[in-house]
C-alpha cells in the first residue's frame, strides 16, 4: 500500500468516524428516506377514493345501465344518484354533495350503435389535483366500457362544478390513454422524486456542511498545509457520504416496495447505477457550495435555496414540467433531479432500459463530469 492510498484511507476512516459519532444526525439521515417515503405514500397522495358520482340519464336503456353498473362495481366510485335532467346538479356541486357527474347525451344507445355516442363528464375541480385524478378515473372506466362494446365513444370532459359549466355546450374533447400506471397510483410517481430529494439532502447538503465545518473549526487549514492533495481531501470527505447516500437509496426503494408495492418493472441494477451517478452529481454540487460558503449556516442556506427548492419544484417531482410556462421550462433542464426522476420513472414504471434512457443518462454523466471538474478547480482555487 503506497503512502498516498494509506493517507487517503486514514482520512476516509476519520470522516466515517465523524459521521458515526454524531449519532443524532446519523439517525436522522438513516431514517430520512423511510419517513419521507411513508409520509408521502400515505399523506400526500393525490389519488382519490370514493368519488361521489351522479348520472344524468335522459332515457334509461341497456347501454346506460351497463355503464352505470360499471361505476357501481368500481371501488373508486360511490354512485349517489341518477337524474333525468341536469337541473338539480349545480346545487349539489355547490353544496359539495357530489364530486362528479356523468351525463349521457339523449339517444346514447342509438348513437352507440351507429358510432359517435357522446358523454359529458363534469368534475368538481376546486382542488385541481384531485379533480384531474377523478377525471382520469372516470375516463378510464368509460374507455374500458367502450372497449368492451367495441364502440366508438366521444368523451367530453369538463372541469368545474359551476352552473354555467353544466349548461355549457362546448366541451373539451379529450382522448386519454392510461399506460404504464393503470392503477394510477400517484405514490409510484413520487418515489423517484423522493429518492432525488433524499440524495440531494444527504449528498449535497451534508457534504457542504461537513466541509465548511472544517473551515470553521480551523482543521481545514491544517489539512491544506499537510501533504494531502486537494483531490484527496475532497475524496476523503465525500466517500463516506456516497456510501450513506447509497444506503438511503436502498432504504427508500425497499420501503416503497414493501409498504406500497411500488413496481420495479425495469432493471434494479440499472436503477442503482443511475442513482450512483446522481449521487456523484449531488456530491460535486455539495463540494462546490462548500468552496463558496464560509460557514455551515451559509452552506445550508445555499444548499436549500439553490438545490432543494429547485429539485422539489422544478424537477417534475410534484408539478409536471409540461404544465409549466414556456419560459420556465429551460430552467428545469438545468436541475439534475429532473433527469434522474425521468430515468427512475422510466425504469420503475415503464420498465425501459438504457436504449430509451441513454440521453438522460448522458446528460447526467456530463453534469457529473462538469460539476466534479468545476468543484475540484474551485477547491484548488481557494488555495491560491
Amino acid at each position, binding site marked *: 500500500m503506497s503512502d498516498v492510498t494509506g493517507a487517503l484511507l486514514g482520512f476516509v476512516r476519520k470522516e466515517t468516524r465523524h459521521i458515526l459519532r454524531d449519532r443524532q444526525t446519523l439517525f436522522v439521515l438513516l431514517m430520512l428516506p423511510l419517513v419521507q417515503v411513508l409520509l408521502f405514500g400515505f399523506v400526500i397522495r393525490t389519488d382519490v377514493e370514493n368519488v361521489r358520482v351522479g348520472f344524468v340519464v335522459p332515457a334509461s336503456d341497456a347501454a346506460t345501465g351497463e355503464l352505470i353498473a360499471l361505476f357501481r362495481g368500481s371501488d373508486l366510485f360511490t354512485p349517489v344518484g341518477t337524474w333525468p335532467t341536469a337541473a338539480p346538479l349545480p346545487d349539489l356541486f355547490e353544496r359539495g354533495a357530489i364530486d362528479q357527474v356523468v351525463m349521457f347525451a339523449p339517444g346514447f344507445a342509438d348513437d352507440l350503435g351507429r358510432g359517435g355516442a357522446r358523454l359529458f363528464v363534469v368534475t368538481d375541480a376546486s382542488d385541481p389535483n384531485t379533480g384531474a385524478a377523478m377525471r382520469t378515473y372516470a375516463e378510464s372506466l368509460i374507455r374500458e366500457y367502450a372497449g368492451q362494446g367495441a364502440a366508438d365513444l366521444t368523451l367530453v370532459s369538463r372541469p368545474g362544478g359551476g352552473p354555467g359549466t353544466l349548461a355549457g355546450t362546448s366541451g373539451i374533447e379529450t382522448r386519454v390513454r392510461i399506460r404504464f400506471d393503470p392503477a394510477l397510483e400517484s405514490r409510484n410517481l413520487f418515489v423517484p422524486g423522493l429518492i432525488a430529494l433524499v440524495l440531494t439532502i444527504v449528498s449535497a447538503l451534508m457534504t457542504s456542511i461537513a466541509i465548511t465545518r472544517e473551515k470553521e473549526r480551523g482543521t481545514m*487549514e491544517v489539512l491544506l*498545509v499537510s*501533504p494531502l492533495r486537494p483531490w484527496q481531501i475532497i475524496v476523503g470527505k465525500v466517500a463516506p457520504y456516497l456510501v450513506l447516500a447509497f444506503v438511503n437509496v436502498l432504504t427508500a426503494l425497499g420501503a416503497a416496495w414493501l409498504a406500497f408495492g411500488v413496481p420495479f418493472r425495469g432493471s434494479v441494477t440499472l436503477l442503482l447505477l443511475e442513482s450512483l451517478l446522481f449521487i456523484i452529481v449531488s456530491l460535486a454540487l455539495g463540494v462546490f457550495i462548500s468552496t463558496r460558503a464560509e460557514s455551515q449556516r451559509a452552506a445550508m442556506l445555499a444548499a436549500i435555496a439553490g438545490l432543494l427548492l429547485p429539485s422539489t419544484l422544478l424537477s417534475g417531482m410534484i408539478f409536471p414540467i409540461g404544465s409549466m410556462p414556456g419560459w420556465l421550462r429551460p430552467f428545469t433542464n438545468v436541475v439534475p433531479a429532473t433527469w434522474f426522476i425521468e430515468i427512475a420513472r422510466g425504469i420503475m414504471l415503464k420498465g425501459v432500459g438504457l436504449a430509451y434512457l441513454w440521453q438522460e443518462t448522458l446528460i447526467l454523466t456530463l453534469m457529473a463530469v462538469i460539476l466534479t471538474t468545476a468543484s475540484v478547480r474551485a477547491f484548488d482555487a481557494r488555495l491560491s
Partner: protein
Amino acid sequence: MNAGATGLPTVPEGGEPAIRSRDLTRRFGDFTAVDAVTFEVGVGEVFGFLGANGAGKTTAIRMLTGLLAPTSGEATVAGHDVSAEPEAVKRSIGYMSQRFSLYEDMTPRENIELYGGIYGLPSPVIRDRGARLLERLGLESAAGKRVGSLPLGWKQKLAFSVALLHEPGIVFLDEPTGGVDPITRRQFWEMIYETAADGTTVFVTTHYMDEAEYCDRLSIMVAGRIVALGTPTELRREHGAPSIEDVFVRLARQDASPPAAS
C-alpha cells in the same frame, strides 16, 4: 534525539538556513500584502514573527507553507523552493494554527493515527511515537477519551505534539497560545524550547509580547514589510525601548511612514 543546541543558534556558515526569504512579495490586485520581505531563519532557532493584525503575517506564512504562490521574490523552506515544490515543503514542515486544530470528536490516539497517516508514517512508527507522545504529555489515561473533553491547555499541547509527529525540520506555530492561561503558556514555551533544542526550527507568531521576549530572534512586520529584525536585546537597544512591547507599539504606530528596514 539530536544533541541539544546550546547558546544562540545562528545561521550556520555555508550551511543551508531552515528558511530563507528573498524579496518575497504577494499582491492581491492593487494591494501589496507582503512587500519584498527578506530574512533568514537558522536551523534550531526559535524565530518570532510579529506584526499587528493585517500587517501581512498570515499571507507570509501561507506562502512559506506552500499554500499560496508568491507574486515575486523567492523563498526556500527546508531546502525546497516554495513556488516550485510546494508539496515537498508541505511534507517537511509541521503546522499548528491559532485555532485548535485537532478533531474534537475523536480520541487523542485517533488524531495521532490520522495525522501520522496523512504524513505517510508506517503504522508501527505511528503506534510507537504516539505512545511516547502520550506518555510525555501524561495523557495515557485520556488516550481513549474524546479530545473535546480535555482542558484547552492539554489540547494545545497535544496539537503541538501531533504537529511534530512526523519529525519535521521546521514547525510553524500560528498564535499557538491564544486563549490559554499563563501557566499553560509557560509550559507550552518549555515545549517549544525542548523542540528547538532537538534541532527543530520553530517559526512562531504571537500577540503576547512576553512571549516575543522568549524568542531567539524576531521580526516585526508593519504594512507588509519587515521593519525590525534581530534578537530581543538588539531590538530593545536599537529603539531605546525598555521592552519589546514598546518597540512593537512604536513601530506599529508609524504605519503610514515608509519604514526603515534594518
